[in-house]
């Protein structure tokens, strides 16, 4: 039976030494989509990918890849992955390493094609261990692609890549997506996720805290802010009663209001006769917005 889902996680929890690395996560990834798991280091992204790949067993919950169990050989033949902290083996040339990995699959891509995809055509004959860090990452990409996978997992793929490698890499990933492959990547750069992914899942402390298209994630996060010093007589409850505010941060008597329409909010604040001093209106940059998204959630937990 064909499942329309590439990846399905239901109520997945992973506990390491009494600490929850992944907390009751539900996630469905459609076939043919490019999805980014976005979150700071230690958010649980690598744990999530490891469980999807069957390298780690969840403490509880259920994971299906292409409708099957990721630990079976039939499913492994249909996926490829670029993992973190993976380097090459010694005394084997680039072409030999790729060919070795090709032999593990029943329908591998041609060596020529893999060299082309990874941009290692000229390096084919040199020892894999002599490659630069970025080139080794690209070799890792060639190995991930060796079996012509239906789902490609990329765990922080561009770490250690120079600008040229990065551009080449994302071009290739975009090409894969256009040929109907499913791509799941992790990153802690919102720009990167925004650039390649059709969907961004924001992860923090093992939970999904936001999920949507890049523009909706940005809209969620990049609303403008109005900051001002509030008169002594105004209470927090009073401010919270003002319509059009999506969040409030306090620093002493200084309040920062988040809103999707700051122009309207400004007029509303004046209508409500809120005493304000030193008014500032700012628009958050992408990363700042991302930080705020995560900070808000952090406050929710406290």
């Amino acid at each position: 039976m064909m499942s329309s889902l590439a990846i399905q996680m239901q109520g997945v929890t992973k506990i390491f030494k009494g600490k929850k690395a992944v907390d009751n996560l539900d996630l469905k990834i459609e076939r043919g989509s490019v999805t980014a798991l976005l979150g700071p280091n230690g958010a649980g992204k690598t744990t999530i990918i490891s469980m999807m790949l069957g390298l780690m067993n969840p403490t509880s919950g259920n994971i299906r890849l292409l409708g099957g169990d990721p630990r079976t050989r039939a499913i492994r033949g249909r996926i490829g992955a670029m993992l973190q902290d993976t380097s090459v083996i010694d005394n084997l040339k680039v072409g030999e390493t790729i060919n070795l990995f090709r032999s593990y699959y029943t329908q591998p891509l041609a060596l020529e094609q893999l060299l082309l995809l990874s941009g290692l055509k000229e390096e084919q004959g040199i020892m894999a261990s002599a490659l630069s860090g970025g080139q080794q990452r690209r070799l890792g990409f060639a190995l991930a692609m060796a079996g012509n996978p239906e789902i490609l997992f990329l765990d922080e793929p561009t770490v250690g890549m120079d600008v040229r490698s990065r551009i080449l890499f994302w071009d290739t990933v975009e090409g894969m997506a256009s040929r109907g492959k499913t791509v799941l990547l992790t990153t802690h750069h919102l720009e990167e996720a925004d650039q390649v992914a059709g969907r961004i899942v924001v992860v923090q402390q093992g939970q999904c805290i936001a999920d949507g298209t890049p523009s909706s994630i940005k809209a969620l996060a990049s609303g403008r802010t109005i900051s001002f010093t509030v008169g002594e007589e105004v209470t927090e409850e009073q401010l919270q009663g003002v319509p059009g505010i999506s969040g409030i941060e306090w620093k002493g008597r200084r309040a920062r209001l988040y809103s999707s329409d700051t122009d309207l909010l400004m007029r509303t604040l004046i209508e409500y006769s809120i005493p304000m001093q030193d008014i500032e209106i700012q628009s958050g940059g992408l990363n700042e917005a991302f930080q705020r998204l995560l900070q808000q959630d952090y406050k929710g937990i406290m």
Partner: protein
Amino acid sequence: MNYYIKSSWAQVQAELLRTFRNRRFIFFSILMPAAFFFLFTAVVGGSDVPSYWSAYYLMSMTSYGVVGASLVTFSQRISKERSAGWIRLLRLSPLPSGSYVLSKIAAQGAINLILILTMFLLGRVGKSVHLSWSIWLEAGLWIWVGGFAFMALGLFLGSMKNSDVVQMISMALYMSLSIVGGLWMPLSSLPSVLQNIAKFTPTYRMGEGPWALVEGRALDWTGIAILSMYIILFMVLSSYIMKRQEAI
């Protein structure tokens, strides 16, 4: 079926290529035993040395080379592959989980065979060691079988993640076992305490068969039994550890 043959063969081929490209292997398993053989058969001479000394020492040094290849080269490679994340990468490929270890053992078995043939050829051509065909065959086979005990020990050491520690331990084991087991110098030249300890070492048991053969003594099969016990012990230990490492 075709898939298994193809992927295993590719794996074995890669192992052979990598081993013969490894300078450390060439030095410890071929150059050093060969040099020791020619040196000690030239230096040690005179009337009190038995006529079979060259053949005796050829067996010692062949064993020494095989121990080095199986213990040092083998264990370090596995440990490095573990720390480099290569084994993790293999685990998510469709390669059957046993294939990695089995191909490695098969390749190492072939390498040990090549080592034994090379050393025997050096002894025959370089030092005119004359033995009957059956003795060459039996001695070679004995050493080859003994090699598996050290492969199993290498596999056990290789299951440790820190390849620097593995390098230190395997080197120390290599040298101490070779000396105590009588591979460097005949056991009779060692203190009696060491001679008693030697009886329990796999290195002594590895040399014991071929030494008996070249001296014209009868083979003592307890040697093979003890080597087999070492093989089983280290295989069980290392597969237990590897299973535990996988189950996270």
